[in-house]
């Protein structure tokens, strides 16, 4: 193979390697981006929605306490009753929507349990409210009806939030592991390919230099007309081989010239 062909192939190899690396990095970046997009689009959004429902439920309980504490005033009773129902509706709708959107079966089951428990709690709140309003704002009697009843749904929803947060954390960890794997693979591949190309380049250059050295030695001896025992054993299909072949002709011509000169001298 000609030296020019080897050099062109080496150059093309380097360019191809870098193009492939660029394409691989682009694909890896897209894959990472798609993974995080999926995570943000579903799991993180659901975890966020769950936190909103959790806060709304706490606000609902807070509104109930405000009713008991300040409901003896008609304006406050109307205000806190309205706010209580708003929070109750937000919690109920939010939990049902989240359950419908949920892919994790266990989490969906927990949500359905919460929806049922929340509905039952709502009925108890209504009964307690009736006791409160009907009993001249006797907050003790009303509180007795629902005291501690919000704990089981609260615990249930805490489990849902924890599970969703754990899912997000697990997905982020899995994504980080996938990124690390892809990065290590890219590093190993590019390192291996670069090392391979470097080795090929080194061997090629070393071979060329060695053959050029032999060619120079022959050329130096021909320049000094030192052809005694000279052997031009440089061959090959490349430019150095062709040059060596030409040297053989020059060598033979000098030998012939020397022989003729010697014969002429003897005559």
């Amino acid at each position: 193979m000609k030296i020019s062909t080897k050099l062109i192939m080496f150059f093309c190899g380097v360019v191809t390697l870098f193009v492939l690396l660029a394409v691989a990095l682009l694909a890896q970046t897209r894959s990472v981006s798609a993974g995080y997009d999926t995570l943000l689009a579903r799991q993180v959004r659901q975890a966020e929605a769950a936190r909103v429902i959790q806060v709304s439920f706490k606000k609902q309980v807070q509104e109930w306490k405000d009713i008991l504490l300040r409901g003896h005033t008609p304006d406050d009773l109307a205000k806190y009753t309205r706010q209580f129902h708003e929070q109750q509706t937000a919690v109920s709708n939010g939990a049902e929507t989240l359950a419908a959107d949920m892919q994790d079966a266990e989490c969906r089951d927990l949500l359905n349990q919460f929806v049922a428990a929340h509905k039952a709690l709502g009925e108890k709140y209504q009964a307690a409210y009736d006791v409160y309003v009907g009993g001249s704002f006797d907050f003790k009697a009303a509180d007795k009806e629902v005291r501690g009843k919000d704990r089981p749904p609260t615990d249930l929803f805490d489990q849902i939030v924890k599970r969703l947060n754990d899912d997000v954390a697990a997905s982020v960890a899995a994504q980080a592991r996938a990124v690390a794997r892809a990065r290590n693979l890219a590093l190993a591949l590019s390192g291996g390919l670069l090392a391979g190309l470097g080795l090929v380049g080194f061997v090629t250059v070393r071979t060329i230099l060695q053959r050029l050295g032999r060619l120079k030695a022959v050329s130096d001896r021909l320049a000094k007309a030192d052809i005694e025992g000279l052997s031009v054993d440089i061959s090959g299909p490349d430019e150095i081989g062709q040059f060596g072949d030409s040297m053989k002709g020059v060598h033979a011509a000098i030998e012939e010239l020397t022989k003729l000169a010697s014969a002429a001298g003897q005559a």
Partner: protein
Amino acid sequence: MAAKLNDFYKQAAQEFGLAGRIKLAMLTKISSEKAEAAPDSPENIKIFQQAMAQLRAGGG
């Protein structure tokens, strides 16, 4: 002995003189001294025939 190869050298000398011998050595890469020791193989004869043709085409 390579009688045929030596004949090529004699032919070159007759047709083109000493310069012809030197050019023949250059083209065949085999000097007359080495031609004496080289075999009259079909490959060698072909090389010398082609060289002679080149010499003739170039006018020696």
